[in-house]
Each structure stands twice: as C-alpha cells, then as structure tokens.
C-alpha cells in the first residue's frame, strides 16, 4: 500500500501529464525527477491510472537504461564509452574511474556520494573523452580532470 503522501504526489504528476498522448515515459521521467528513482509503490498507481497492467509498467521501466528502481548516489557521473571517445583514450579513463571508486559500472561508492554509469555518446565526440556530471557536460577529460571531478563529487 502506498501512503497518503505518495498518492498526493502521484496525483499531481498524473494531472500534469493528463493531456498527453502516450504519457507513460513522461510520467516515469517525472517520477524519477521527484524521487530520484521509480519507487515500487507507484507502479500500481500508474497502472491503474493508464488502465494497463502492473506488469506492463514494470516491463517499460526495466526496458530503458535511464530508469532505476533504487536511489542513486548523491552525484551521477556518466562516462562515454562509445567509439569516438575510445579513439582518444576513454577506455583508460573508464578503468581509472572504476578503480578509484572501487565499483563496477552502475555501482555506487560506499559513502553514497557517486554513482558511475556508462553512456554511449553524448554528442561531444569532437571533444572527447566526454563525461557528464549530474546532467552537466564535460569534454576533453584527461586523468587530472577526472580526478578533480571525482574529488568534487566527494568520492
């Protein structure tokens, strides 16, 4: 069962998307913007609202890389692993990041400060290697710049 507060928040979100055609993705983005992840509680609420099954909503959530079912760290750092960035040293950069943080892709540091994710192209391919910190783009990332980003994020 979801609590009163959850229901209230969800009513607001669903109302905001009431006029859209095919609103499930926008709804999920709004939920994740609100909570930082998609809480299990809201799946049934969304399913009831759109008149689809709980399984269908779950199927959509699990299909897309963006949606998470648990909170992430305080900061999300994404490193581009695609070809153009590889050609200028992204692999070494990724190795360095994972080693410094002591986690695998998708993992969160023990102090919950950083979640590190792989991303396949940020459109910064002419100024790679590229990364993104909490939605902010960073280009020409070298070892020193990476260390600084990690330190600023409290890793």
């Amino acid at each position, binding site marked *: 069962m979801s609590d009163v507060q959850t229901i209230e928040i969800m009513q607001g979100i669903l109302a905001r998307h009431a006029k859209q*055609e095919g609103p*499930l993705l926008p709804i999920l983005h709004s939920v994740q913007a609100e909570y930082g992840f998609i809480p299990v509680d809201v799946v049934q609420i969304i399913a009831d609202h759109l008149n689809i099954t709980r399984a269908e909503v779950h199927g959509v959530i699990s299909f897309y890389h963006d949606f998470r079912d648990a909170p992430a760290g305080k900061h999300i750092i994404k490193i581009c692993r695609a070809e*153009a960035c590889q050609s*200028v040293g992204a692999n070494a950069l990724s190795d360095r990041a994972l080693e410094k943080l002591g986690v695998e892709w998708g993992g969160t540091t023990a102090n919950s400060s950083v979640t590190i994710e792989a991303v396949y*192209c940020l459109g910064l*391919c002419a100024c790679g290697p590229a990364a993104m910190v909490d939605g902010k783009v960073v280009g020409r990332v070298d070892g020193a710049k990476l260390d600084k980003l990690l330190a600023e994020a409290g890793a």
Partner: protein
Amino acid sequence: MKIYIPLDSAAKAVGADDVADAILLEANTRGLDIEVIRNGTRGMIWLEPLVEIETESGRVGYGIVDVADVPALLDGKLESLGVVEDLDWMKGQTRLTFQRCGITDPLSLTDYEAHGGLTGLRNAIAMTPAGIVEEVTNSGLRGRGGAGFPTGIKWNTVLGAQADQKYIVCNADEGDSGTFADRMIMEGDPFTLIEGMIIAGLAVEATQGYVYLRSEYPDAIDIMEKAVVLARAAGILGADVLGSGRAFDMEIRVGAGAYVCGEETSLLNSLEGKRGVVRAKPPLPALEGFLGKPTVVNNVISLATVPVVMEKGAAHYADFGLGRSKGTMPIQIAGNVKFGGLYETAFGLPLGDLIDKIAGGTLSGRPVKAVQVGGPLGAYMPRSKFDTPFAYEEFDGQGGLIGHAGVVVFDDSTDMLGMARFAMEFCAVESCGKCTPCRIGAVRGVETIDRIGKGDTDAIELLEDLCETMKDGSLCALGGFTPFPVMSALQNFPDDFATKKEAAE
C-alpha cells in the same frame, strides 16, 4: 560591443559558460558597455570555446579561449584568428542546413527571420500540400537519419493516406557515436527544425508533431522546449500557423536511454509509452504509425533541411551533390583528429580529403589506421579506401555506409579486434530482444571474438558464420548491420586478429 560565446553543449563542455561569466564580470569591473550573445557553434569544435567580437570588418574570432585569457581579450591584446567567415574551414563549406548555426542567437525569432528564417514556411503556405511534396521530391532530399530514403516519396505516401489524424515525428534520438549534427542544429538553430516540421505538417495534412529527443542531450531538450514556447507565442505554432488558417502544434518528448529507440518503429512504440521493441514492417509507419495513424518519421537534419529547400527552391538544392546523392551533407568529424567538428559540404568529397586535409589527420600525430563512418553499425574503412567519394551509392559499393555521416578516426595504436568486440558487445547491450540472431548472436559474438583473441583461429570461421546469420536473420539493422564493423575489422585488419595468436603461442 557585441561578443558572441557559444552555448552549444560541446562549447560548454570545454568551458564556454565560465568564459562567458568571466567576460561579463571583467566588463562590469571595467565599466565596459558590452552585449554578450550566446550563439550556437560554428562547428569548429577544436577551437571551442570560440569567442567572436563584432568589428567593422566582420566577426573576429578567438580560440581556444580560456578564462585566464579574458583580460587580454578585452584589452584587445589576445591574438585573433581573423574574421571567422574567412577561415579556410568556414570558406570551404556549403552551408545550407546550417546556414544560421553559430551566427544567430538560437532563441531570437527576430534574428531568425533576419537571416532568412520563415521564408520557406511562407512559401509553403502559399502552395497546395501536393505542391510542397513535389518541391521536396524534386530537391532530391534523402533521409539523413541513415537509410537515405527519399523524403518526398515518404511524404507522398502519408499525404495519400486517409485518416482523421496524421502525425509528424522527428527522430532526434541520434545515438551513433561520432554524430552530433542533430544536437548542434537543435541547440544552435532550433527554429529551423520547428519550421521544417510545420512545412511537413502542411505537406501531408498533419496537425500534430513530436520530437523524440534522447535524454543524453539535456541542453538540446532545454533549448527545443524554449523554442517551441516562443514559436507558439509568436503564432508560428498553434491553431492558425502564421495566419494561414491551418493548424500545427508540437511537443518535445524525451527518450530514456535506449539506442534501439532510434529505429523508427521502436521509436513509435516508445512514444506510445511501450517498450521500445521493433515492429515488423509492413505496415509502414507512413500508413500505420503513431497510435496507428499515418505518420511521417524523419530525422532532424532531413526536417531541418526542408526550410532551405522551400526558401531557395528545389533546383538550387538539387544542384549540389553527386549522382543520386543530392544537396549537402553535414559531415561530423570526430575521434582522434586535429580539427574535429561539423563540416557541411556537397556530397562527393573523397573520404581521404576529409580526413587528411579538413580534419588535419590525427590528434595524436600518429598515422591514421581506420575510419568508422556511419556509427556503431558502420564499417571500418582502411586507408586503401580513402578515394571513396562521400555519397550513398559510392560508399555502399565499398562495403560501407554513410548513415548519419559521422566520421570517427582511429590512429595506428587501435586494436581492431577490440573494436570488433565492442561492436558485438554494444549490440548485446542495446538489442531490443525481439529476434534471436541479434539477442543471442551478439552475446556469442563477444565470446567468439574472445576465443580468437586467445589464439583460436578456428573461431574465425565461426565468427563469419555468425555474422552471416545475424545479417540474414535479424529484423532490423541493429542486428543486421553489426556484422559491418565486425567483418570489416576482420577483413581489412587481419593482422590484429592473427598477431594475437602468435602472442599467445
């Protein structure tokens, strides 16, 4: 004094915001009267942040500008690159789709109109739907999203379909590595995409449009959303487009990080709020697309090119190019290159000229080993294929594809077995899961390449077999084209697959 500092995310990624702040602060301290305009990028990404100062002789450029350079810049003591329009890189281009990008303030409609914006739409309003479709057909414009399907023919199908509602869907999922033209135009000249979508709407009698924009592009999302609001407020979008009595409105939709959602039917499923699984064709989206209604699905660049076609006429556009590849292509030069960025030119330039002359060779200074054109599903071209003209049929004839025209350069330190492995791994991660050759084949592909890497040469034949199966048995190009990078790496760089064996023995 007018100072231009790009707001493009590639410029921001290398410090443009900090430079803009520093200039404003310094100007304030000195009591200077300056106006800072955040323009799009000119596409010379290697020079970003590229700051321009308006002078009597034109806009003079400075790059790469660092925050520390700001006092010297305002003192007039920083060494300039000269007038930006006169730089070889700019002069060599034929800018049609990107005519305004980097020049104007992306969110100024006044600027947009002063530089030719809305002329195409006004011309279209005076025409019949069939007339617009004919003009676009005559321009020879082919889909810039990958397959190169003639845009006019697609529109004609949608125009001919009977329905109470039709849609224009813009594919802004731009997932290919090495591509950023869609992002650049959306951030640098968003109204041209909006204008193109409205013209498409008028042409096929659709009244609603969607831009499906990848979530990896937060800056583009922000600018497009603002541009839509401005266009609506100005009566360009809405119930009465520029007083024409015809309606067209649109919405920006954000994807959720799945490469396959760039495939048009998967995109439509995603837009409808479903898993982004590929649909079998037929039915074509042109007949049964979004919510089962006739839908034009076009790439950003295809749609953003429509205004200039309608502004200058089909013949003007079709005059550029080579053979059946008409007009210009915004080529995106990326990876290990000295001069990376966007270069719009008529089709037909030899690949080698692009790499050695325009891109200036590698950034590392080492020899070029391979060039991957057309994203993760594109072939790796060796130097021996550098005389291939940049055009659809010509690339096809060399076992390659131009796709979205992303060109990624690799130097001789690149391990091509590793790149082949990556292609398979990418396919495995991004497969929509609908067909076995793609879903399972890619996973087995990674294992097989690992076997080759360990010196098992028998596995090479197995890999070839597997690629055949994926090519023949996959429903869409994700599984069907992954063999391109894999097989081209194997065929053109056999040493990288064989030396492993010797090393292991």
